[in-house]
């Protein structure tokens, strides 16, 4: 199977869906002539022209709303946020319009729009550019939220998101764009709401998504060296959440550590922890642990950023804790 980057996988997903369906278009800052701030839309302008690859001024609220309006009358917009940090100036359009129109119109108008872009901290881009808002969007009924960790998942999930008739918040990771993996050439979809076991193991369940899967894989190797086999569960879609795949794993291992790159309080991991204790209380041999970034705005200095972000050693420590190894 061809090996391509996460960035290319996203690019191919958009390209294929735009070729498949003339109602699909891409809109955002620098997506066209600049080929994408992070080059995800490389070549698309040349392939589809300015009509379908639309460069916008800096007006997220405006063009996010344009996406909602266009979707209302039958188009299938892909709205790119240069990063999800900038989605906060547009969040009203996503929460109050995209997520609610289907319900408040009594089912007359559905909104097949995808809001996508990189989410989470990159490297030393400081407090206003280093945020992960999964839990904001997961809180809102009417939205679906996806956060792929591999090129294979990224392509199959983005294609499914574009074909979905509901608004989908598709959160990528800038720090994964260059990561590579096997991706088949042929057309395939990954159903939203279906998780995936990234590594099988018996002693502890690690739940993570997006960039944090890498961290868990590294940690699992360190743990394996000590004879501890961790199972890594990647929900891939955060809303709707594949609770079953998590619960089944925890029923087996009796221990659960949730790893997320964002802030601890009201992070999506809290929701997962709630569900795990709800459905597996009797199976739990230890409290559900969480590994998150520190509860602070992200500092700029590299050394401090490392202290704030979840590290392999933090995951290892959390696992040893739920195993009562210290």
């Amino acid at each position, binding site marked *: 199977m061809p090996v391509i980057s996460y960035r290319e996988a996203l690019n191919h997903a958009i390209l294929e869906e735009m070729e498949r369906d003339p109602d699909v*278009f891409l809109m955002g800052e620098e997506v066209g002539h600049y080929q994408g701030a992070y080059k995800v839309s490389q070549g698309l302008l040349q392939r589809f022209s300015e*009509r379908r690859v639309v460069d*916008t*001024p800096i*007006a997220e*609220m*405006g*063009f*996010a*709303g*344009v*996406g*909602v*309006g*266009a*979707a*209302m*009358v*039958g*188009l299938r917009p892909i709205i790119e946020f240069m990063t999800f940090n900038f989605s906060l*100036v547009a969040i*009203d*359009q996503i929460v*109050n*319009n995209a997520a609610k*129109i*289907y*319900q*408040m*119109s*009594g*089912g*007359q*108008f*559905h909104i097949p729009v995808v809001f996508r872009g990189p989410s989470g901290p990159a490297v030393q881009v400081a407090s206003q550019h280093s945020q992960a808002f999964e839990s904001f969007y997961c809180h809102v*009924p*009417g939205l*679906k939220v996806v956060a792929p960790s591999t090129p294979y998942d990224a392509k199959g999930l983005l294609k499914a998101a574009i074909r979905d*008739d*509901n608004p989908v918040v598709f959160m990528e990771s800038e720090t994964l764009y260059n990561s590579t993996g096997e991706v088949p050439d042929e057309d395939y979809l990954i159903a939203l709401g279906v998780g995936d076991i990234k590594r099988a193991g018996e002693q502890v369940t690690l739940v993570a998504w997006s960039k944090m899967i890498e961290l868990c894989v590294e940690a699992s190797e360190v743990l394996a060296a000590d004879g501890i086999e961790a199972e890594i569960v990647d929900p891939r879609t955060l809303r709707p959440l594949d609770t079953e795949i998590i619960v089944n794993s925890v029923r087996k291992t009796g221990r659960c550590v949730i790893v997320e790159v964002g802030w601890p309080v009201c992070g999506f991991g809290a929701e997962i922890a709630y569900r795990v204790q709800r459905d597996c209380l009797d199976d739990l041999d230890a409290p559900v642990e969480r590994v998150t970034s520190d509860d602070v705005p992200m500092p700029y200095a590299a050394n401090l950023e490392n202290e704030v972000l979840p590290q392999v050693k933090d995951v290892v420590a959390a696992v040893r804790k739920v195993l009562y190894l210290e």
Partner: protein
Amino acid sequence: MASSADVRVEPATPPEPVIKEELLPLFRQMLAIRRMEEAAAKAYAQGKIGGFLHLIIGQEAICVGAIACLPPNDYVVATYREHGHAYAKGVSARAIMAELYGKRTGASKGLGGSMHIFDRETNFLGGYAIVGGHVPIAAGAAFASKYRSDKRVTLCFFGEGSATIGGFQEGIALAALWNLPVVFICENNQYSMGTPLYRSLAVEDVSMRALAHGMARDRFDGDDVLRVKRRIQTAVDRARETGEPTLVEVRTYRFRGHSMSDPGLYRTREEVVEWRTRDPVAFARRRLVEEGSASEEELEEVEASVKAEIADAVRFAEESAAADDYLSYVYKE
């Protein structure tokens, strides 16, 4: 601060000559909206309608005159004060009243209520309750028309109090930059809730918002439904033929409070009385008689048919079954 030049409507144009065949149906629509909202106010007082109820009484000439310019497949996007716009676009009084009553037979199946009437059938893209938030949506519908070259036009209504917020400003900026076939219609009713123009606008001419974007603009009084129709028609034609948007400001007045819960203490009785002399419905009726050679009988017939239509709508709403399904419309399968 606003210079005195800004606060006047220039130039005070004379009313349009009356063509009876044209004015009579517009009069009927305005009257139906008036009676429908009076009935809604009554039902609200009786506790049969809940939540917020924003009446457009006094402003009927704008939605009626403007939407009369549109063929059925053009789009309309409005605010929470949208009963009249929905009716003018073709949504039945029955569907509107049943929605206010929260009934299954309502336009939005009782899920939206007064502020969120939607109707796919008539391309009424809905009423929205976050100020400014619907303006980009209107630009989006117009974007789709340009994308498909389907020659449709979108009308977007909003109040003068909504002309400062980001959603509005970004929405019109994108429409101007991309040449989207949309007409932005500001219903300047002098107040944003309890806030008069001079406390919300540095320049009390909302149409000047168009200058920064090189957008066409117009500005006139909303008491004559025929004037509204003529002037909006120009903007609609511009949108359809050249794809260019227009920002139109229409000066008007709401006779009632902001919503049913607003006693409107911020206005003097004199002011309200003065504006009531410019009631667009009474004005149209008077002119039908004086200039349109319409007979009292004719007009009484119209009034009777409107009365019957609204009575039927109320009965329909009263008798319809309560809304029941709120789980099927969160996600589309």
